[in-house]
């Protein structure tokens, strides 16, 4: 792998950029691997990266139906935060957030982690009380977060509608100064390049069509490019997890729905933080390119089409026009959707299964971009050692049978 740096950019520029190497190879699948990861989204790629790096498992493959990073990893609005309510959630999201801090350097790929600050508005007394509770939980966990006054909200985000007579006036906000955004594609690409350099085969355009078991054990996967033997399989297929797990005869407690997002045309900077307005169901930030990045609630019906309904978007935009009145004259440039994997408690599943050698990482729903590094880290550890990493342990598949739910729907109606 040739290292990226200012100097390599300059040196290559002098040579008309002719000497850059491939960021990753395009290998043919081998007949057998020590482990196969299904799904080259951020979570799958990060899992492979840490398997190779931390556990020296380099004879592994990531099998991807389409192009790497083309699922939700390349479709999300890139909010990164760790101010979740429940202790297990705080642990994994904060591990992730802190890994993001140094990820560009770790991967030698600029994924543009931008901790510009993130605020969750309080627009009813009830929301204010609920977020205070989250704040207390977070501060005891050691997170750097604080409640801020309406005046501070306005200072940090001058375009916000601070009219005290607004429909839902701003009573304050819960602020995580080192929350922010990142560049989604670069996260996938950086992990892919890093994993590839250590010998991981990333096989794109190759759907997994079956999972072969013998007795209670996994023995291999069927793919569009043939059968691959392996004793360990990690399924990391987001919205399609239920479909893939069914191939191994495992039913998943997951519903797949479409979540949409949209961007405006690029404009000069107007908002330098992420604002989430959960009472009215919308959030907004501005990308480095200048586009306002907007998202909101998911569709309420199950769907695999990656095309959402307009009413859901309309609801979001209407809320944000009221929250940031200057956007009224700006324009929607592009909208899209992703199929998100929703669990009943809005928390992920990072778990082994009753089938030996079969592991699953899913259920990140509307909010798993922020979790990619941490999830990959603990999931790799879980697969490599055949037992749950302590941070992954509470997120077992079994919890749904036991009722040991980790409910995050409490904390934010829109969980990103």
């Amino acid at each position, binding site marked *: 792998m040739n290292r990226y740096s200012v100097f390599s950019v*300059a040196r290559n520029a002098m040579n*008309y950029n002719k000497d850059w190497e491939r960021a990753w190879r395009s290998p043919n699948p081998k007949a057998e691997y020590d482990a196969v990861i299904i799904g080259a989204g951020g979570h799958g790629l990060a899992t492979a990266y840490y398997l190779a790096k931390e556990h020296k498992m380099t004879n592994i493959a990531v099998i991807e139906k389409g192009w790497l990073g083309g699922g939700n990893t390349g479709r999300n609005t890139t909010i990164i935060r760790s101010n979740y309510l429940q202790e297990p959630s705080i642990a994994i999201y904060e591990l992730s957030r802190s890994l993001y801090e140094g990820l560009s350097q770790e991967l030698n790929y600029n994924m543009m982690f931008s901790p510009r600050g993130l605020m969750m508005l309080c627009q009813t007394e009830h929301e204010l009380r609920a977020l205070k509770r989250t704040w207390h939980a977070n501060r005891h966990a050691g997170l750097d977060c604080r409640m801020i006054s309406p005046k501070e909200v306005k200072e940090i985000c001058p375009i916000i509608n601070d009219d005290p007579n607004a429909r839902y006036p701003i009573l304050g906000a819960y602020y995580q100064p080192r929350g922010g955004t990142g560049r989604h594609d670069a996260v996938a690409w950086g992990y892919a390049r890093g994993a590839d350099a250590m010998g991981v085969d990333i096989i794109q355009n190759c759907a997994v069509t079956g999972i072969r078991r013998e007795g209670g054990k996994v023995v291999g996967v069927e793919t569009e490019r043939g059968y691959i033997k392996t004793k360990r399989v990690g399924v990391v297929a987001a919205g399609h997890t239920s479909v893939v797990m069914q191939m191994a005869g495992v039913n998943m407690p997951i519903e797949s729905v479409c979540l949409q997002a949209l961007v405006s045309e690029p404009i*000069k900077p107007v908002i330098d933080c992420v604002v989430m307005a959960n009472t009215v169901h919308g959030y907004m930030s501005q990308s480095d390119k200048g586009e306002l990045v907007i998202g909101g609630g998911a569709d309420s019906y199950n769907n695999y089409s990656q095309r959402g309904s307009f009413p859901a978007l309309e609801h979001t935009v209407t809320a944000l026009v009221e929250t940031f009145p200057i*956007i009224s004259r700006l324009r929607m440039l592009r909208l899209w959707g992703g199929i998100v994997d929703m669990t009943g408690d809005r928390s992920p599943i990072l778990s082994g299964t009753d089938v030996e050698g079969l592991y699953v990482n899913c259920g990140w729903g509307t909010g798993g971009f922020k979790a990619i590094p941490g999830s990959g880290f603990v999931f790799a550890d879980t697969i490599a050692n055949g037992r749950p990493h302590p941070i992954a342990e509470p997120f077992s598949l079994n919890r749904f049978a036991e009722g040991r739910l980790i409910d995050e729907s409490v904390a934010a109606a829109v969980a990103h």
Partner: protein
Amino acid sequence: MSGKPYRLSDAGRLIDRSKRVSFTFDGKTVSGFAGDTVASAVMASGQRVMGRSFKYHRPRGVVGLGSEEMNALIGVGKAERHEPNLLATKVEIFDGLSAVSQNRWPSLNHDIGAINNVLGRFFSAGFYYKTFMWPQAFWKHVYEPFIRQAAGLGKAPTGRDPDVYEQVHVHCDVLIAGAGAAGLAAAEAAAASGLRVIIADENPRLGGLCDIGGGLIDGASPLEWAKTRAAALAAADNVQVLTRTTVAGHFEDNYVLMFERVGDHDPSITAAGTPRHRLWKVRAGQIIIAAGAIERPIAFANNDRPGVMLASAARGLAARYGTAAGVNGVVFTNNDDAYRTALMLKSMGVGVARIIDSRTNPESALIDQAKAAGLDISFGSSIAGVMTSKGGKQIDGIKMSPYNRGRVTNETKVDCDFVAVSGGWNPAVHLWCHNGGKIKFDHELQTYRPDRSPDGLLIAGAANGTFDVPGALAEGYAAGEQAVALLKGKAGKIAKASATQEAQAKLEPIWFAPATGAYNEGDKHFIDQQNDVVASGLELAQREGYESVEHTKRYTTLGMATDQGKTSNILGLGVVAEATGKTIPEIGTTTFRPPYTTVSFGSIAGAHVRDRFLPVRRTAIHDWHVANGADFEPVGQWRRPYCYPKAGEDRHKAVTREILAVRNKVGLLDASTLGKIEIKGPDAGEFLDRMYTNTFSTLKEGRCRYGLMANEMGFLMDDGVTVRVGPEHFIMHTTSGGADRIAGWLEEWLQTEWPDLKVFVTPVTEQWAQFAVAGPNARKVLEKLSGDIDFSAEAFPFMTMKTGTLAGMSVRAYRISFSGELSYEIGVPANQGRALWDAILEAGAAFGIEVYGTEALHVLRAEKGFIIIGDETDNTVTAIDVGLEGLVSKKKRDFIGKRSMEQSFLKMDGRKQLVGLLTEDPNYVLPDGAHALEDATGKPPQKTLGHVTSTYMSPSIGRSIAMALIFNGRARMGETLSFSLDGKVVKAKVVEPVFYDKEGARQNV
């Protein structure tokens, strides 16, 4: 040429030379004519540079004729009316219009950012992923702020939008997108059936390219035919003609979004209060896409210089606005259509120095005409470079060389000041694809054409890849007829026009014209001009492994500019194909997503702004609350009085007074927001048994019962009192915030899981006004009112209900209590609510009645240890956790949540349980959500034991009280818990969560 050097004297069918219009561009006054666009007027004034590009800040001019424009982006209007990123080719001018160029500093002519162009090699595709990483903190503090400032295009407006927007919801039988030849023919055929037809076009007039597309209809210019058709459609009762209206998106079930720019072209329209934009939401029986095609350029070195434009744009500007692209131009093409540009320009007196045709020896009528007109043609040639002066702002000529796909051999210079280029046309398949329509590559046209549509969309004309007028007409008529047939309408008779057009020679693909020097060194070939995506960047992306089109797109930003790749997508695919030796279909395409062109957020919000954004729901007593100084808080969609401060009182004092009034005298609460749902039918009891954790089928008529509702996971989701009013009739009360959700929840179960149950569910929250009369004097107040209800303790015991008359109104009276006092709730039809309210107040005056708000209500119930769903519960709390296991039926066969409540974790000991807390310092009120800690003196991370759910200063017992969910709380009675708050350790004792009148004596009188 006359007047201004670039305004042609006898061309410009759309401008009215008798009406001068003056406006400003970057502060300079520009004079144009009514009918001009900013692009046509500014160009006619001799100015060519209209903007700067995104990354390299290169000077850019107009390229297109309409919505395909990617360079001439301007900001229009001032301050809170400013609108950035509009296309100068679409903005119609009016007196006083103010337009500015964008993305340049300090000015369009002298832009510091242009230094990026000099450094262009360093800014190769994706370079930012490879650098800006050291030192770590610099990204946030140095690099990113710099990049953010440099990026972005126009500026946002400065204040709240003063204009209004609206939405229209309509159904139609046939919707036609695009009113060119094909669309007009389709509309005529469809309209003749009498069905309801909508035809929409993004341009101010119908006709599409009928004016400049060539061919003849009924022996005359297609424009004449288009005008007659447009007039006929406008006159037809069953046809709605919409101009300046873009069909922006197609969704599931033929749901279509149309974006109409109602008042942008004429400020007097919006000044009169008419909406500026209108968003149409259409459900169409059949949709015919007749959206035409978009010309694509050919990439050659420095093809972004101001003055290089699409051949159709050069032709259209001249024909429509009399604006010449320059004095002497070169036409560069691989197809016949651009010959029309050369011929037309020549006929208007614009110099055409050369037609450069990459094809070797094409033969056709148009080529013959060009030869006959004396035009110089160089076949088998291409443009190898553009010579400029004034910092690239002016074209002096081009370098031409034989086209042989390899190195440039010998160059000829041709003087010119503009270039009209055509690489062929791409059907506008966007709408076709929005909802999953498939496209296929057509080798003849070297572009994608519609293939299959899951929605059965119809498509006609250039949008279908049929570029000739006779073909477009035929397809248009056929599509119109087919739509009628599919809708089982009656085909009408029409006199179909007949069209002719000369045969054309075949197009030969050329995507990339080599430049002087080695391949890809030096000069830039622009593919996506706005985003400064160059051919070498696309090629680099392939070499680096970003081979999937989506990777290429994202790595280079191809097609992601404000034009969404209208001119660059296919061109980019062509360049990638050439660079990798693959075919275009092997490479694939990216997804076409709505909207086709941008849609204002204002129109998406429509009228739902300010007061109409989620309208406030008001009870029948709302005006009284306002008149009596209520301090409101939002509760769900309602706004409820939090308290009623009197002169000199703050919130806290008012709440205290209200609470004491209820405890000592009598209080009146407007409880109308409480959810009320009528449940009727033979299976009503059974249904309620399934919905609630406790039993209702056994409830006697006239009896009330408090019920708990759990979700499938076994956690509490709502509570309230339900009453049986008849054998098959119950009234359910829900929480105020939960009313709509619960009504939906009941319906969901009835409709999807238990359709066999005979039950009707009718939400009636708004039909009833309901008040609580609570306090020791409650009975006296009600007895003072006339009526036939016996309120005595014997006749009207606790948890019963009666109907009767009170103060001359028929009411439902419930003896229930959420305050622990003697209390009745009286329901009356909402239209009589105010009368009853006034009557109760009047009767109560003698007994010291006071109104109380939500906060007093909350404190009163907390003093009694009653839970509030959403405060004491949070979707993780069971009935057992809050100490209400008595309300979980052990006998019932099933109810929602039963299975989950059997799960080990829900049954286990030591869960968080509801307790009361009394702080050591009785004046200290614990903060909301505070967490008790195992060790409050330590440092984070600290282990927490649970959290405060409700916390108040209790006037009734004269000290602070709190409720909390604490791990194993019930076993900790009497223990002291510690909190770390504001740097201090605060201690509180765990107690039963009932703080006042533990025996419940007060309500049983």
